[in-house]
């Protein structure tokens, strides 16, 4: 069984050396879909130890390439060792990807941890309980919650892939811009899950708030 011996991070993720960050993310997702332990393709091919090592390498490759600074340092090593000619890369790298999408994906592991610890802070806990105890939850309340958790819109976007404009519409109660209920409910659920609060409470509260606003 061949492993990733002798392959550089670009080869491991099977992307060209001038890949943009969204391509790196996509390649990472594709790699996970193949090597994850519930993947029907590989679950029987590798031992747990082999799989762990492979996943560890893939993650390392991703975390290096997705971080601009680490990637630059890594590229330098590759170029110096003569493995690849990155002279073209540096030029193309100047073409920056859309800023929102880069998000803070590198901190994704810490992110969940960070959010989980938040309600331990007195003020955050108070705000959370206040909001959830209310019958209707406004977009403004959502925004305040999010800010109390110190989460950026771009982070919610990066994790849930809800577009920034929709998140803003939700938070600003712009009912006319909101997606149909079916989608809205799912978006609210993802939003709530990102902040690790009860999705059902948020969905019910928010929809209630909309129907109240529409009656007026």
């Amino acid at each position, binding site marked *: *069984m*061949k*492993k990733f011996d002798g392959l550089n991070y670009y080869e491991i993720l099977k992307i060209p050396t001038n890949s943009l960050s969204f391509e790196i993310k996509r390649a990472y997702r594709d790699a996970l*879909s*193949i090597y994850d332990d519930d993947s*029907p*393709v*590989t*679950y*029987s*091919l590798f031992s747990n130890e082999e799989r762990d090592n492979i996943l560890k390498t893939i993650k390392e490759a991703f975390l290096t390439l997705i971080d601009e600074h680490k990637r630059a340092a890594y590229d330098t090593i590759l170029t110096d060792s003569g493995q690849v000619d990155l002279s073209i890369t540096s030029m193309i790298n100047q073409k920056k990807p859309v800023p929102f999408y880069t998000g803070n994906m590198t901190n994704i592991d810490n992110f969940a941890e960070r959010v989980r610890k938040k309600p331990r802070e007195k003020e955050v806990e108070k705000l959370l309980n206040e909001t959830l105890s209310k019958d209707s939850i406004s977009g403004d309340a959502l925004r305040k919650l999010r800010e109390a958790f110190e989460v950026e819109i771009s982070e919610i976007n990066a994790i849930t892939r809800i577009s920034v404009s929709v998140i803003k519409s939700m938070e600003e109660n712009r009912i006319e811009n909101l997606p149909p209920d079916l989608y809205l409910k799912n978006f609210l659920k993802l939003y709530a899950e990102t902040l690790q609060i009860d999705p059902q409470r948020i969905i019910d509260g928010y929809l209630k708030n909309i129907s109240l606003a529409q009656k007026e």
Partner: protein
Amino acid sequence: MSQIYPIGGGKGGVGKSFITASLGALLAKWGKKVVLIDLDLGGSNLHTLLGINDQQGGINRFLDKTVNNLENTAVSTNIQNLFFISSSLCSMEVANLTHAHKLKIINAIRKLSFDYILLDLGTGTNFNTLDFFLTSKQGIFICTPEPTAIENSFRFIKVVYLRKLKQIVKQHSFISAVKKATVSPNNIAIKSPDIIEIVLKYDPDSESFLRNRLSEFKFKFILNQFRKNLDATIGYKIEDLCNRHFYSNFQFLGNVGYDVRIHDSVLSKKIFVHRYPYTPPAIDMEKIAEKIINNRPSVSLSGEIS
């Protein structure tokens, strides 16, 4: 020169015989002279799929020397250009073929003169099946997109590898430590297919030789009984994965759709692609046949025999 395509794959019921019959019929339709050989010894039923009531036998007459040339045991089918060698009348104990008989069959197959020779192999990973599969460097695995079948296919690939590696190690000069590690049955190496690593460790000079030998293999595979709601790229994922983690070349030939009418055609003992030529599975297989015809094998088949 004849092109030999052994058709195998670890799991039973995935459609090896069905695909063999269908591909054979399609290749014959393209004007190629094709012979199908039922090498599922002790479990033959390719003749039934072809609608042949086998009364005279095939391989049995070759083994008991009633017929000297295997080619003379080939019978014509109701499809032009398509011939068939049966094993349904072999002895009840033929599944446990002797080594000499096995070599006799393999050598005779290599001498047959047809455009395409398709070998329908049995389930499992016994030595006979593996050696028949290694008759050529372009074996085809049949698999279904289910974890059980994929698991068995991987096992089959690994065991084929191990068998081949043992042959290579036996026949060429490797340092004795390698021979011991690969050939002795009580070694852990038998469980792990990773003999390249062992060779690397004990005999680094032979590594590139071994790699070259293994890279001569151009395995192919087909995903059969493919249902619509599945990820259609799964075959390419497996291809990619095998090319990355094994030392040979793997080619995904395509998915063959699931169709209830396949069952009907088996019941009526008619070849599916003839009875239902415009159904999705028939069209899928037509594409596969086309790929096989367009494959230009660069490897010579006159390799060593176990």
